[in-house]
């Protein structure tokens, strides 16, 4: 398995670099459309990270929801409002924001690297069976599941009410 592990690590670093690059593209690119496409790349990369963590189910959900729905909604909103051409995208506080974000990133990095995580077995992650996920989700997390579905319903209705074009408007 040694070769495979090395290959996996190399792949991991490639994907991680891709994610970070795409995420930087999201926040630094001048065109809204480019930002949206970088966002797709970045989210797809996160999906690949789920594969590395052996949560295939979640990776597929990530592709399905983010790739197929969320980014498409964003692109659709861009098309409908046709913004992006010549509009100022950054506010005046961008430099301050940059410093704050760098500081935050430094803190997070140091916390991530320097903490000794209790219970870190150091194992290679195993595949998570979808049956186990569903059992847990439907049995132990029944109430949150129902609440989340109600939330989705409310969001659906709210979005319709908000975006609807009333008569005479």
């Amino acid at each position: 398995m040694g070769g495979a592990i090395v290959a996996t690590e190399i792949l991991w670093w490639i994907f991680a670099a891709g994610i970070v690059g795409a995420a930087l593209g999201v926040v630094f690119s001048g065109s809204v459309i480019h930002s949206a496409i970088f966002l797709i790349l970045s989210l797809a990369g996160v999906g690949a990270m789920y594969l590395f963590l052996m949560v295939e189910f979640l990776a597929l959900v990530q592709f399905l929801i983010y790739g197929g729905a969320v980014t498409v909604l964003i692109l659709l909103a861009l098309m409908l409002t046709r913004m992006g051409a010549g509009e100022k995208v950054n506010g005046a506080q961008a430099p301050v924001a940059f410093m704050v974000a760098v500081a935050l990133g430094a803190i997070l990095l140091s916390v991530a690297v320097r903490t000794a995580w209790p219970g870190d077995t150091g194992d290679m992650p195993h595949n998570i069976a979808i049956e186990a996920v569903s059992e847990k989700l439907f049995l132990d997390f029944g109430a949150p599941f129902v609440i989340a579905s109600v939330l989705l319903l409310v969001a659906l209705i709210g979005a319709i009410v908000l975006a609807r074009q009333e008569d005479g408007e």
Partner: protein
Amino acid sequence: MNGASPLPFGDVFFGWSWLDAIIRIVIVVLLMTVVVVYLTYGERKVVARIQQRLGPNRVGPWGLLQGFADAIKLLIKEDIRPRAADRWVFEFAPFLTFIPVLMVLAALPFARDWGVRNVTLGLLFVNAALGLNIVGIMMAGLGSGNKYALLGGVRAAAQMISYEIPLVISILCVAMVAGTLDLNAIAILQEDRPFLLLQPLAFVIFFTAMLSELHRAPFDIPVAESEIVGGYFVEYSGIRWSMFQLTEYASLWAFSIFGSVVFLGGWEFPMGSDWGWGWQLFLTFVKSLAWIIAVMWVRTTVPRLRIDQLMSFCWKVLLPMSLVQLLMNGFILVYDWPQELLTLTSGIGAAALVGFVLYRTARHPSVAHLVGSYKRAGAAAQ
């Protein structure tokens, strides 16, 4: 890969079977190219037959090489990029539409365990991949710098997001009955009868939503030739345009195989898995061909819907019906009712759906009012 235990998905990328995977992918891609070439030829022939024409008959015997001639012509054609286009978005869009189809093909079983990989979560994987190909279409619509393309992109987005829901629910119905997401296992479960017989309503919904996802008539609104001149790929030419065509036909092919595995029993029904892989491949071929010809048949005879009709059909008809099917499946499974009941109720649902459309077709009073008497007059004079 002799099918005893399907490999986990992660092994596609990180396992030891790299070489094997690459060989299989190359084979499937080559096969796909040939299939697409002959699908275009076949479509032209089928359409020509329905429209009382001859179709391609000059290049090679019966025009069999026409597709290759077209492919060569497209490959050496100048690739034009409009000045108003957003360069990278424009250039990458065709490839982004193509990648998801390739992903789907990687998970499809052509015969028992004959595929690139047998994915445990095959059903979900196919859905996820199919959900992705809209991104490329939107990129094409936004990046072309063309209003027709923009309109086509908006229409495609609205349509594909909407129709994905009934499509996913109809597949979910299958997954409920089958109790697995593995495509091979689903095929094996259909040894005695295909899921088409078990839940015809889900099949009808799947077929309709599939037409919409493929931008096929009567749902070809994003590419409406007579309104927006081809929609999102109006500015493309040469090889990039042919990528879109490739995507269209490859996804038609992928959908036909996927649909025949999920609803028609794939390579399993009616012969069982004892027969050799040759027969199984043949069976897949026949079923997907029937599927494809059905799609082409619909395309030539049915006009296009309007965008609001399309939306209301999805949200007011397809979605409730698919939820009904889902509920019926739930009852059958929870209370352990006999499966014949499912066949019956779902059949009634499908008949209601089809009958609703037929009834609406049959209730045109003004047609009789206007033409009826004149028809008779004409016939009498004749």
